């Protein structure tokens, strides 16, 4: 049994009462099948050989009617229970998967495709319905019902009972063998489906660009090739996967045929009664029924198992190594960025390369440098979202970073400067407000978006922050669509800035806060930033606009460098 299967079974304990009920209902149905076979055989044999009429057979016929109705009722109850089984488990996995994906941070996310993750969290996990609702109860029934049927057959005809008893165990053996064969194929299929989803999403998102260059039609051929590849990979998988169903069907029908022929020949020889023969004939297929249903459901749940494996891979992805979990100093006396370099994944460059600066409360420091110099990366390092390759960012204590330990908040070295990696990440981020280059706006009201980092901010505080960045004429109650549609890009950026201001955090990080703004809006934003600094915030802003740089107290240039450059040289 694979590890993911075991973990899925463990997750299923959330719904174990429903599972017991589903198995119990199935077992009761199996027992009624035995009674039904007895009654049918009795009625047919008596009518054929004894020439008995409906009146003589009134008792078995009315019992048969009752059994048939009860079986239908049990099947219905089983179905309802089965459908309710999977919901709780799915919701649990979905939440664990998504929270993990968020917590793993941007460096991890840059290597993932968000559309593939969404596909996994929705359609992928939906495939677990069949796993919990049908496959799991059927697995239990597949183990119990054949034993019951063989026991009943033993009382009637030993040869038929042995035929069934010998062939039934062959079925799981064959299925396991073939199942192992199809495993690799199955993985490839899911990978192909993900690639298809990703490619479609990329092409659709870029359709305006493709159309502008008259290249949209050319993609039809590319997409057709992807679809064809999808079909051939899937069919190759299915050819193998269906083999186990084939083995199952073949064994089940051939052994029923063998039982029928054997019973017929023994009847002709006078070794059996017709009633016994018919009982065996009607009952024998019931031994294979749960296994056949299991086979049908197993293929349906294969995708679920694969999706579960991918979900567990995300859930188990190692988080960034935890630091010492210290509390940030109170109040914060500024930031010291000390020779920070970050190696960019997939490129042999350090960006930034050896960036150093200090920003204290009340100061606005601008970080400039060419595109690709790692200005945004530097802010991510300050936030603790990305670990620097070299150097460190330290938070200064109230004394501004002097060597003397002050009071109870002394850090490990007896120094009030603490490396941000040693801080408790949540505690640190609650003291920092950050405006990324393209603030992410959620579908919801403008006010909700402004409150993202300060859920308790009053209506007045929201309105004040909005008017400070020149958004007084946008209604806080305005409901935005996806990615803030309903606002211009300049307005979206200013909502992001208002979101940071309303938090009144002691450290304010702004990534190109005035890009895309006209002169009036830019002036308003810079006034608001200055006001935040005057209120005691240490402000670090990434800028290349002269307006933004002019509003800063100091400007620090950062640059990039090739990995292992000659000492002291920074390209730029």
């Amino acid at each position: 049994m694979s590890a993911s299967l075991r973990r899925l079974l463990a997750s299923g304990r959330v719904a174990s009462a429903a599972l017991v009920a589903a198995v119990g209902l199935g077992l009761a149905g199996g027992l009624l099948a035995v009674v039904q076979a007895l009654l049918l055989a009795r009625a047919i044999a008596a009518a054929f050989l004894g020439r008995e009429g409906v009146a003589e057979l009134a008792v078995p016929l009315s019992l048969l009617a009752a059994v048939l109705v009860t079986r239908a009722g049990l099947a219905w109850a089983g179905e309802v229970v089965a459908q309710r089984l999977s919901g709780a488990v799915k919701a649990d996995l979905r939440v664990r998967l998504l929270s993990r994906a968020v917590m793993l941070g941007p460096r991890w996310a840059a290597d993932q495709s968000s559309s593939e993750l969404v596909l996994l969290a929705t359609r992928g996990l939906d495939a677990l319905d069949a796993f919990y609702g049908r496959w799991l109860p059927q697995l239990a029934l597949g183990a119990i019902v054949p034993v019951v049927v063989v026991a009943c057959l033993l009382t009637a005809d030993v040869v038929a009972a042995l035929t069934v008893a010998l062939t039934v165990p062959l079925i799981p053996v064959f299925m396991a063998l073939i199942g192992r064969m199809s495993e690799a194929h199955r993985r490839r299929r899911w990978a192909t489906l993900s690639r298809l989803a990703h490619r479609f999403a990329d092409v659709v998102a870029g359709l305006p660009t493709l159309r502008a260059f008259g290249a949209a039609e050319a993609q039809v051929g590319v997409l057709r090739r992807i679809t064809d590849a999808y079909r051939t990979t899937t069919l190759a998988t299915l050819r193998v996967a269906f083999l186990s169903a084939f083995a199952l069907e073949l064994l089940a029908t051939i052994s029923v045929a063998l039982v029928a022929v054997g019973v017929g020949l023994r009847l002709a020889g006078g070794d059996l009664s017709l009633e016994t023969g018919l009982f065996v004939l009607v009952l024998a297929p019931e031994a294979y029924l749960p296994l056949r249903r299991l086979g049908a459901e197993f293929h349906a749940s294969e995708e679920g198992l694969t999706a579960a494996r991918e979900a567990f891979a995300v859930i188990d992805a190692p988080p960034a190594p935890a630091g010492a979990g210290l509390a940030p100093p109170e109040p914060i006396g500024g930031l010291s960025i000390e020779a920070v370099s970050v190696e960019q994944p997939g490129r042999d460059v350090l960006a930034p390369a050896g960036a150093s600066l200090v920003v204290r409360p009340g100061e606005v420091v601008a970080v400039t440098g060419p595109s690709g110099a790692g200005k945004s990366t530097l802010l991510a390092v300050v936030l603790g979202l990305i670990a620097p390759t070299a150097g460190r960012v330290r938070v200064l204590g109230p004394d501004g970073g002097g060597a003397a330990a002050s009071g109870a908040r002394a850090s490990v070295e007896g120094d009030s400067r603490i490396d941000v990696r040693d801080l408790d990440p949540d505690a640190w981020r609650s003291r920092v407000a950050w405006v990324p280059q393209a603030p992410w706006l959620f579908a919801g009201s403008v006010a909700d978006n402004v409150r993202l980092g300060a859920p308790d901010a009053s209506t007045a505080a929201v309105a004040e922050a909005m008017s400070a960045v020149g958004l007084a004429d946008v209604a806080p109650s305005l409901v935005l669509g996806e990615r803030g549609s309903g606002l211009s890009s300049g307005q979206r950026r200013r909502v992001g800035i208002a979101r940071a201001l309303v938090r009144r955090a002691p450290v304010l990080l702004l990534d190109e806060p005035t890009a895309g703004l006209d002169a009036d809006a830019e002036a308003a934003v810079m006034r608001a930033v200055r006001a935040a600094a005057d209120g005691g915030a240490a402000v670090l802003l990434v800028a290349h606009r002269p307006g933004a740089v002019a509003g800063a107290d100091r400007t620090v240039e950062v640059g990039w460098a090739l990995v292992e450059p000659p000492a002291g040289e920074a390209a730029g």
Partner: protein
Amino acid sequence: MSALRAILAIGRPVTPRLLVALAAGAGAAGASIGLAATSAWLISKAAEQPPILTLMVAVTAVRAFGIARGVLRYAERLAAHDAAFRVLGELRGTMYTRLARLAPAGLAELRSGDLLARLVGDVDGLADLWLRVLLPYGSLAVIGAATVALVGWLVPAAGIALAGGLLVAAVGAPLAAAAVARRAERTLAPARGALADAALDLLRGAPEILATGAGPRAIADVAAVDARLAAAERRSALGAGVGGLVAGLAAGASTWLALLLGIVAVREGSLGGVALAVVALTPIAIHEVMAPLVAAARQLPGLAASAARVVDVIRRPDPVAEPREPRAVPDGPLRLRARGLRLRYPGATVDAAGPLDLDVAAGARVLVTGPSGSGKSTIAAACLRFLEPAAGSLELVGERGAVDVREVAGDDVRRAVGLCEQDPHVFDATVADNLRLAHPGASDHELESALAAARLLDWVRSLPDGLATPVGEHGSRLSGGQRQRIALARALLADVRILVLDEPTEHLDEPTARAFMADLDAAAAGRTLLVLTHRPELFAGSAWTRGPGLVPPPARR
């Protein structure tokens, strides 16, 4: 239902393969019935203890049916899946071709998570229309009729009872299930879309959520959307149960009636006792074979909803009307002229831009300025013929006459007018692939010249894989400025006479922006440039002319 018909029409080219699958399916079901009927006859006949030789045909037939069922079922499954996947290929092709005519203005109000759900999830799910509904119903209709004929030939009344039972099981039960499930599905499909949207929002906003400590609250929001979906799913479970219940009762009734009528017929002497087991046991077999139909039909409302979502995209009206008799774009140097041009998005009630008068002379470099929200990107969309003018004219003027863009095929307009978007899409491919989009035959040297003009060549050369470096999803491995400059290089590569640049200096630092604009004049020699910007101060030099300034239309909020 009309949506399902439209989907079926798209799958028509695959009909021969579907018929092969249908025949194999009918054969497999027939073998099941044959096995039940011949073995019932064999055992009954054997009870009369005839000479063994008289049983040999039946013995052979029982064995043959036993083998044929498995083999035919395997063949049917492979043939059916192959055919269904081919149909999906047709469907995706049709849908993409349509999207390529609609984007961007015709898809404005669709959320991208929802569009992805339609393209992948809905289209994929539609395979079940053939696999689980049409093919099983087709092959079981054939075998069901044959079984009714067999039983009816032995005991006519039992045949009628069986026909009634089968109709209830194959049609009545699914209808009952569908009636209950339809109500659930109405909330189910939007709930699935809402979950996909919520998850996408969450993942794309992850860095900011992480930084603001809003994680638990954002996750709780997604969990709430998920809970609504789970509740809708639980309601649909009752529908499935109801269908199975009706089918089970129908199976019980036709088995019981067949036995009863068979016993009467034997007593009357109209049926030989040997055939009684055949009359009584065959109905059980055919009902068992038909059992999956309830589950199949349960999917029908879901499939109809998926089909409707797919067809909604396919049948959307074009955002621009193509002319019946398109005129050609004039040869030679080209001017752009707008008079009283007003623009409005489909379904909107106010203008997004205009009225605008604009003259861009051939070879000129013209700046159209305006603050954010004044409709600069909208004007770019109109120049590329993505958006229909609401009023006024927009003309391409050659030396020997002018044509309005409405008189020219959209593709021809875009062969003459190119665009570098404000928020350009960078594909998850290599740097070279992203550039060659604009000019598929371009040599590496041409790519490098374009990169040099966009001041990006040094950076690309510093990469270990150079032009062959992948850029990541949405260019996630690039900085904002690098993304913008890839798009600029791409626009310069395209062989167009008029190039529209929408905020080309966005994300560029000041010295790079100035240098780029100075280079642009030389790099775009011989072309007409229309630059839409809110930073005209960056465009120094005599080459640049100030065009009209835009003001935001009133009451846009």
